[in-house]
């Protein structure tokens, strides 16, 4: 996880916030909660098996929000939700790591936060097509298709430039179309 402090070490940490930045205090956090808790909750509902038994989705959303409070100085103004989606990706990956004692020596760079085989997608064809995609393509497509991200926000979540995000999305969409074609050929055959 990215723990970079983002603040110069030689400045007194307690004294003052940057000038143009609203204080990240309790009121800020309450506003953050009101604005984004629903979206975060939905993020987990979409990605947990069986639609995220309500309590799991709540617990994980709460974990992200508590992380946002704990690291409130790192949360960028104007991009709070992308920051939390990014955190959510790691929280979900951790959650799944805890649940599954897979003997795995490989730690993927890309947090694979969607398990198509176990996801709550009721459309079986969609699930199969998702399973044909790489974890990164899945992640990008679902952030856009389900969570409604676009443009700069998507770039923020992926931690890449805007141009890079647009290109990645474009490629992912192309591969999605290919996967559909392949799927339909299999079904037709």
């Amino acid at each position, binding site marked *: 996880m990215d723990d970079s402090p983002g603040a110069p070490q030689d400045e007194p940490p307690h004294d*003052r916030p940057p000038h143009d930045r609203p204080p990240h205090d309790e009121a800020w956090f309450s506003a953050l909660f009101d604005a984004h808790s629903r979206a975060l909750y939905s993020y987990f509902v979409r990605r947990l098996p069986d639609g995220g038994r309500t309590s799991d989705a709540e617990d994980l959303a709460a974990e992200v929000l508590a992380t946002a409070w704990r690291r409130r100085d790192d949360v960028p103004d104007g991009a709070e939700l992308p920051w939390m989606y990014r955190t959510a990706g790691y929280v979900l990956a951790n959650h799944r790591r805890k649940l599954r004692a897979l003997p795995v020596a490989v730690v993927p760079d890309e947090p694979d936060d969607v398990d198509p085989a176990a996801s709550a997608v009721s459309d079986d064809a969609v699930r199969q097509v998702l399973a044909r995609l790489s974890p990164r393509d899945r992640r990008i497509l679902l952030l856009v298709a*389900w969570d409604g991200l676009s443009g700069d926000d998507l770039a923020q979540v992926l931690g890449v430039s805007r141009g890079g995000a647009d290109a990645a999305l474009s490629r992912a969409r192309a591969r999605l179309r290919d996967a559909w074609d392949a799927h339909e050929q299999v079904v037709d055959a």
Partner: protein
Amino acid sequence: MNEHERAGDPAFDRLVAADPARRAPDPVQGVLRAKVDALIAEQAEQPEPAGQAGPAGQAGQPEAGQESADELALRRHRRRAPWLVAAAVAGIVAAGGGGYLVGESGLGSGSSADMTSGSSAEAPSVMGAPEGAPRDERDEVEPERGADTEDLRPLSTGGDLPTTTGLVFHAGVGLSDAPGTADVRVAGASGERLGSYPVVSEVEAVERLGDPRFAGAVLGRSGEAGPRPKAGAPAPTPGGPVAWPVEDVTIVSASLTQANYPLADGTELVVPAYALSDAGGSTWTVIAVADELLDFAP
């Protein structure tokens, strides 16, 4: 809905329409907030885990200061239903090492058909160990007791290394290197079929026996005994080599079968698995689903 939802891409539109959260109920805001507050209070009460927070603990809380702010959260969560705290905490802590691939369908005759990966204490090198080892091979299976063996002894400190013979697997010439497909479904009478999944070839399945990602989940030797190291191996001599027997196993036949695979959420899948046998009749079983549809996320 968003700028990417444009016409002319039915694949994407169908993906959008499949959003599972469209039908999901809204969270109960009060409950969610209480869980957040409980977690924050927990953070305030406990020292930060190393390497997790970075300098956040001391980072500037401009007006209130973190202590007082978190104290607020503490008070608020005390005021709210305390049982929620327990529930939330339990939800986070509950981890459970998911056991998996507990064997069935004749995979391990009388063996402890347990493919749970070795956890910390056990060295991972028990991979492919003969779990259902034959009774008459006591020098092989019971040396931990130190009863009647000379050649293999447990270490007296720092934990015991497994004393099983290391196995090196080779694919026999008769095995196929053609991948295939097989069904994955949910276990049970009304088992939902998840589809036809790619499976590795027989040769790749043998390679999995020696692959640490899979070897911990291999159902061990069942059936007849394979060749054993000779009994009554010489006692260790000063300056002499340490006995570390390694057995070469050549897999001569592979058959695609099925194994139960319980997922963390309680769902049990029936997955394709290879039963791999050597010439002596010993059989090992390993999951057959190809890498691309195995989610290796930890």
